Structure formats: C-alpha cells, structure tokens
C-alpha cells in the first residue's frame, strides 16, 4: 500500500525510470560522491497512521497545564470571533505561495492591501508593509532602517522600558550589524527624558525607539521625546500595540516617523509564542527604505483594478547584498488573520475590547491592592490600559509559580521586585475575583505578612 502522500505506484516508478534511462532510483544520484550517501538508519519512529498521530499529539497536548491567562508581557489573550479561523482555513489562502503570479493571486494581494490600509489607519502612518515576523524583529528592522535612512549615522537609542525580549533581539541585530546601541534607563516607570536628551547630544544618533505602552504597562507620553529626537536630527520609532492604538494617540499623532510592533494583540492565539505577526509602517518620505513586501494598486491589460507586489527594487531577490533587509517570507496568513479580525470588530468592537480590558485591569489592580499584599510600584499613579505592575511586599519571584499551581498565569516576575498582570475582554469580574482569592491563598501559604 502506498503512503497517502506519495502517489507514485511501482508501475509509475518503473515507467518513469525507463523514460529517464535509469534502472534504479539510486542511479539518479550517480553524481553524488559515494561517501556522501547515507546508508545508516534514521533515528525516527516507524510511520504512524493518522489515528496514531492524533493520539500522540493529544497526549502531548495533555501534558500542558491549562491556565487562566492574566499576563501579557508581549503576548495577549484576546478573544477572536469564530469567523477568523474559519476564513484562515480556506486552503486557497493557506496553501498559496507568495503572490508572485498576480493574475492568480488577487485574493492574497487584495487582503494584504487591506491589511496595509488598516495598519496605516490605526497607526496614522502613510505606508505599511505586508508584515514582518514578530514584534521583536520588526523593532530590529526599524532600527536598521533608521540607520540606513540616516546614511552616515550609526548610533541608535532604545528605551529600557521596551519589553525585555524586544531589547534582546534589537541588541543581537545591532551587535552583528555593527550598530552602536545605547539604552536609556527607566525612571519611576517611564523612560528617563533627562537621560534621553543627554544621549541625543551626541551628533551621530540615527534614531530613537520608545514604546507607546511600556513593559510596566504604562502608557508613555511621547511628545517631548519625539521633539527631542527630531531636533537632534534623529528618526523616532514607536513600538506599539495596534489593538490599544485604536483608542490611544497614534504614532502619527505623536509625530513618530516609524511605527512597529506585534499584531498578535489583534486576537491571535497565544500558541506558545507563534505564529504572531510583526508590522512596520512609516511616513511617506521613508517609503523606499521600508523593508519587506509591499502590495500596490494598478490596472490590468483590460483596465480592471488589479493588485501587485510593487517597489521590489528594494528587496533581496533584486538587490541581493544591497537590499534594505534580507526578509523574504513574512507572516502573510497572520496578516490576513488580523485583517479579518479588524473587519469583524470595526471601530466599535475595538473600542469595546479596550474598554472591557481597561475596566477589568483597573478593577483587578484595585482589588489586589486592597488585599494588602502589594504596594503601588511608582511614586505617582501612571496611566495604563490592560497591563499593570505591582510590588508584592514579599516573595515577588515565587508568586507566579504559586498561582500556576492554582490554575492562573499571573504575577509574572519582572525582576526589580515587580510583578505584572494583564486583563483582557476574556475575563469577567468573577474570574478576577477568583484570581484575587488565589493570590490571597498563595500568600497565606507563603506565611501571611499582610500589612
């Protein structure tokens, strides 16, 4: 019996070999030096039937402990309507390659064009690309773009208030690309403007990157930082959450030149970290410096509206070592995910998602403070939306594990004695109260010490 994925029968193989003038399949490898041929056994299990594969993965999945997610830190548990995975499962979308043949790829091309449009409308930017891998790599690409756009400058400033994994990836890319990366410290929960201005005194700063919402969940006021960057002749990059930006001041309104981040917040499943969907958008003047694919509108030979991959002269397959980036495949299907999600949600749905998250997070923070086990982390109350940090009076590092034992992912330790929480529209008042009770029970187990 043939394997279900292999249509060639013995007879097919015999006839095809005959046509090719070979008497064995191995003869097709006659040009391969014999010491390169692998004659050993593969360390793989014997072929499984579909039923056995299903059992195997059901068993693996059951080894994960399901938790109620009250944490963010770069991956947010938002609700996604049933229509989204339904549309994504259409194999006309999922089994297509990159839309090189525009005539039979108008579905992908139009959807990417809609995605580019939506990202522009959310961020207030002029041009958005077809997607990047994830938020962290979109930040690294934004840094390289800023340095390339500045021509001679080679220094880039990042705020230490960015998510730690974003900082790590940016720093890896900077190190290998040869960019001088400077980290501006955090002061009382926000980027230190004094330090930023000092760093901007150096003449060779190509750009500055700051988060709209930082790793403490604090919404930063970017006005002064943007102005300082621009007066130093540096580009300003905002790392942002596109879900939150449907209600918050846009990158365009702040005056940023580039917006980047992760569209995972647009309903994408947590999926142990991926696939998510990076995005990147910029002002018109930097269009030709933007990495990644771009879809543009045009007409076909009959004058009908048609969409194509365009401005490809920027890309690796044309420019090779002179390209602005090496990106080729991106996260196209996840960009479709975000596009379908945003179509369903509309402006009213996005407003409600943010209102529910805001209300839940503020309720939870109040209740947690009321337990007496936590302190406000900063000297003043900082504005936040769905994510916030607190300072436990004790055992900041242990709390997360204790809560996991009680069925929650919450109180992620940030170091510095702080822990973070996040609430989305997926959690109601009762679940928040259950979490508060779990926190109390965890601290009781740790030995009380309420103040």
């Amino acid at each position, binding site marked *: 019996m043939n394997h279900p994925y292999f249509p060639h029968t013995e007879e097919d193989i015999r006839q*095809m070999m005959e046509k090719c003038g070979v008497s064995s399949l191995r003869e097709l490898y006659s040009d391969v030096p014999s010491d390169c041929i692998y004659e050993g056994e*593969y360390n793989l299990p014997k072929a499984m039937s579909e039923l056995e594969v299903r059992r195997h993965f059901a068993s693996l999945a059951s080894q*994960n402990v399901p938790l109620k997610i009250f944490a963010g830190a770069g991956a947010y548990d938002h609700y996604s309507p049933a229509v989204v995975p339904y549309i994504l499962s259409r194999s006309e979308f999922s089994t297509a390659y990159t839309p090189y043949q525009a005539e039979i790829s108008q579905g992908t091309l139009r959807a990417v064009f809609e995605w580019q449009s939506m990202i522009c409308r959310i961020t207030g930017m002029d041009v958005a690309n077809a997607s990047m891998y994830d938020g962290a790599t979109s930040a690294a690409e934004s840094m390289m773009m800023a340095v390339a756009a500045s021509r001679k400058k080679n220094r880039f400033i990042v705020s230490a208030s960015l998510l730690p994994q974003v900082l790590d*990836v940016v720093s890896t890319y900077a190190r290998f690309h040869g960019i001088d990366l400077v980290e501006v410290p955090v002061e009382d929960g926000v980027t230190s403007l004094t330090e930023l201005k000092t760093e901007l005194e150096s003449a060779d700063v190509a750009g500055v990157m700051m988060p709209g919402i930082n790793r403490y969940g604090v919404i930063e006021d970017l006005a002064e930082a943007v102005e300082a960057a621009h007066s130093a002749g540096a580009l300003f990059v905002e790392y942002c959450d596109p879900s939150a930006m449907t209600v918050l001041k846009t990158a365009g309104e702040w005056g940023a030149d580039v917006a980047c981040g992760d569209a995972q917040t647009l309903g994408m499943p947590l999926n142990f970290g*991926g696939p998510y969907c990076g995005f990147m958008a910029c002002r018109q003047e930097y269009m030709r410096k933007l990495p990644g694919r771009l879809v543009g509108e045009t007409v076909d030979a009959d004058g009908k509206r048609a969409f194509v991959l365009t401005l490809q002269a920027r890309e690796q397959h044309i420019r090779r070592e002179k390209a602005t980036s090496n990106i080729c495949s991106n996260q196209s299907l996840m960009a479709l995910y975000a596009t*379908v999600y945003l179509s369903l949600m509309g402006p009213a749905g996005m407003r409600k998602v943010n209102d529910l998250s805001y209300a839940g997070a503020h309720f939870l923070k109040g209740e947690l403070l009321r337990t007496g086990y936590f302190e406000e982390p900063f000297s003043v109350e900082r504005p936040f939306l769905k994510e916030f940090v607190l300072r436990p009076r004790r055992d900041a590092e242990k709390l997360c594990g204790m809560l996991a034992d009680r069925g929650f992912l919450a109180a992620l330790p940030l170091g510095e004695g702080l822990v973070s929480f996040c609430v989305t529209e997926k959690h109601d008042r009762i679940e928040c109260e259950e979490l508060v009770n779990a926190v109390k029970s965890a601290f009781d187990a740790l030995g009380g010490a309420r103040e």
Partner: protein
Amino acid sequence: MKYYDKLIFELSQNGRCGCSLPDNGFGETSCTELPTALQRAQAPELPQVSEPDVVRHYTNLSSMNFGVDTGFYPLGSCTMKYNPKINEEIAALPGFTSVHPLQPLSTVMGCVQVYKELSDYLCSITGMSAFTLNPFAGAHGELTGLMLMKHYHLLHGDVSRRKVIVPDSAHGTNPASAAVCGFEVVQVKSRPDGRVDVEDLKPLLDETVAGMMMTNPNTLGLFETGIREIAQLVHDCGGLLYYDGANLNPLIGVVRPGDMGFDILHLNLHKSFSTPHGGGGPGAGPVGISEKLKGSLPQPDFYCGEQEFSMGRISGFQGNFGVILRALAYILMLGRENVKLLGSYATLSANYIKVCLKDCYELPIDSVCKHEFVFDGLKDKSNEVTTLDVAKRLLDYGFHAPTIYFPLLFHQSLMIEPTETESRQTLDEFIKVMRTIAEEAATSPDMVKSAPHNTPVRRPDETQAARHPILKA
C-alpha cells in the same frame, strides 16, 4: 476563477458591526478616563460590516487565489508539496493554542516535548548535532546561521574574518543575509556545467574568510559534485561551511548535509516539511549546527536549556510553534521507512519532466538533475515568445507557473520543481500543456504573448504600480 472587485472598506456602512462582546460586570468604567493627551482624536476608519459581509468578502477573495490544493504548483526552489490536513487539526488543538509563551516550564512540558522530538528528528535527517527551532523563516534562519558563524570566530578571538563567499547561482537571500550580518559578500563563479568553479574559489580563501554559503543541490537542481573538496578547502582556511536548506528535499533519505561537511544549516519547514506557505508565511527556518558550534544557539532554548555561549536572542519567543507542530506531525506520518523514499521520488519526478520536454525547451545543462531543473526558455525563439509568456499561458491551463528569471545565470530561466506528491498523471498533463504552449508559440505567438486570457485579472501594469505607488485604500 471569477473576478471580484470589492475591498472590504467599500462594503462599510455606519452602524454595522461583525462582533459581539460580553458585559463583564465592571460597570461603566472605560478608557475615556485616560488623560485626553493620551487618546487618539478620532476612531480609526476600520470597516463597519456585518459577519455575513465579512465571510462572503473573504470567500470571494479566496476564490481568486491559486493554492497547492487548487492545482499543480511547480514553483522552482519553493518545494510546493501537498500540505497534509491532519497537521492543521494538530496545530489547532486547544492544548497547544492556548499556551502562553511565558508560562512556568512545569506547565508546558507537552510543548517542550514537541521541540525535543522535532529537534532530534531533524538532527537525524540532516546529520547535524543540535537545532534551534526559533527562526521564523528561511531568510531568518540564514541570518541566524550567519550570526552563529560570526559568533564562532569571535569566540575564538578571530576578528579578521569579515567575508562570506556566495556562489553566483545562490538565492538572493544569501548575499542579503550576509550583508545584514555585517559581512562583506564575495561572489564565486559557476563553471559551464553549472557547478561552483573550485579553481575560482581557491584564490578567494584566506584568513579574512568567515565561511561559504552553499545550496546543494544548487539552484540549477544540480548536485555540487565537488562538495567534499570545497568543504576541505573552506575548513583548511579556517572558515565554516553554511548549507542553505531551501533545496534539501531531494536529499532527504539519501544524503545528509552534516556528512557532506556542513557546519551550519537552515531548513525551510514550509518547503521540505510540508507546512503550508500561507501566501507568504508563516514559515519556519530551524538552524542546525555541527558539534564544534555546540552551546552557541540562540535563547530561549527549551530543549537544550541554557546555552553556555549563546549568540543572543533572535525572536520574541520561541519561533512559530504552530508551524513546528505541523512539521513534526508530517515526519511522524512519514516515519523512517518513507523518509527514505521522499527525496528519490521528488528527483524522479523532476528528471521525468525534464526528459519529456527537452526537445521543445532549451536545456542548457543536460545532466541528471535533482528536485528541479532550469530551462533557458523555448528552444525555438524565432517568434520572441519569452519565458514570461510561457509562464502566463500556463495559468490559462490551470497550472501555477514555474519560478521565472531565476537563477540569473540564463536570460530566460524557467525553473521547474514538481515534488514527490504529484502523481504521474499530473506530471503528464503538465508535460502535455507545456508542449501545447510550445506549439502555440510557433503557430499563434500573439495569443501566447498576451496570455493569460482566462484568469480573474490579466497582466497587471507593474510599471504604473511602481511609478505611482498606491499602497493603501
């Protein structure tokens, strides 16, 4: 395929909404309480459409798309094999999709086991020592691999190695990745038989060379017969040899890159390991290393744990886990007995098409090929019917076009890769159509030059798109 001309924004009517959300019992609290200076002036102009509007719109869009499930997709170097459906179900299991990437290790042991199994199996298939599954795509794997190369030399205090050698037949991502990694790119020529010119390579090798990138079989579908000598030469000068796994498919079950002397490689799970390409991603580009680079893989590493000399972090979390799951399901379905057949079936299919068409298409290098081969356009070029015209005419007949105008070694490159999942009937139909097109090029060239005729849109005006970019609605 029917032409459908709407954009979602054009369906929008004020007041429509395609979602429903609960009342979570928190009262009237809303984010309008935030300082006005932090709020946007106006709501974004997202479409206001009903749920049926959305479903019909995207269903109509999808009907203008061609996928592997639609028909034969002989796109060279892209390995468009069948994407098994069980893999989709596995990747959608709530026990995987609902896991947060920062959960405590003890609560994600199933995911960790997935990483462990796939890493082990990839090691066995490729002959490498360890893998990171974090890179998101082939080009991202290349970049990670080159970072590992640079990192290796720096760890050994070898700071002068700034060059990477790349053959002129290489994929465009090779030189681009090297440049992003801060390397100088040096090109090595191909011989008339399509293989790397070892004599041209020798003088390039010195103590400034960090390594060399190779695709084997190369982009002409030809096995680099001098690979052992090349590996020796590169290693003798202190460099590392990098394997671009885009063309791994024909070698699976027959030849292992590790045994050929490669030190670092990336694989494309969306090519050789059957995960769907999604219209341009998400893919996955795992990177494998040989023994001498052990301990330097990127963080986080769930399988190997803390890497003593890690080169840093290249992804927000641990890669495209959903893609990793699909690739593992595929390997388990194949098992060790079928893995051995895969590469030779793909190779047989390619050689079969080549032999059946070489009398009407120009075959610049006539020797046994691997998973793919390259024609240099039609044999009869008297009517000036180009490779582009042939590609477009194929769309009329219900086939996807091959890769065209790549590799750059020929003017009319037409690169065909059938994969092992296409039946002989499909290959025969394709051969028949390719022969018909060759005839049409002789008898009615204008019809071929103006193709396609039966697709939702005809040839788009790309010049206008680039000259007056309209990139958003």
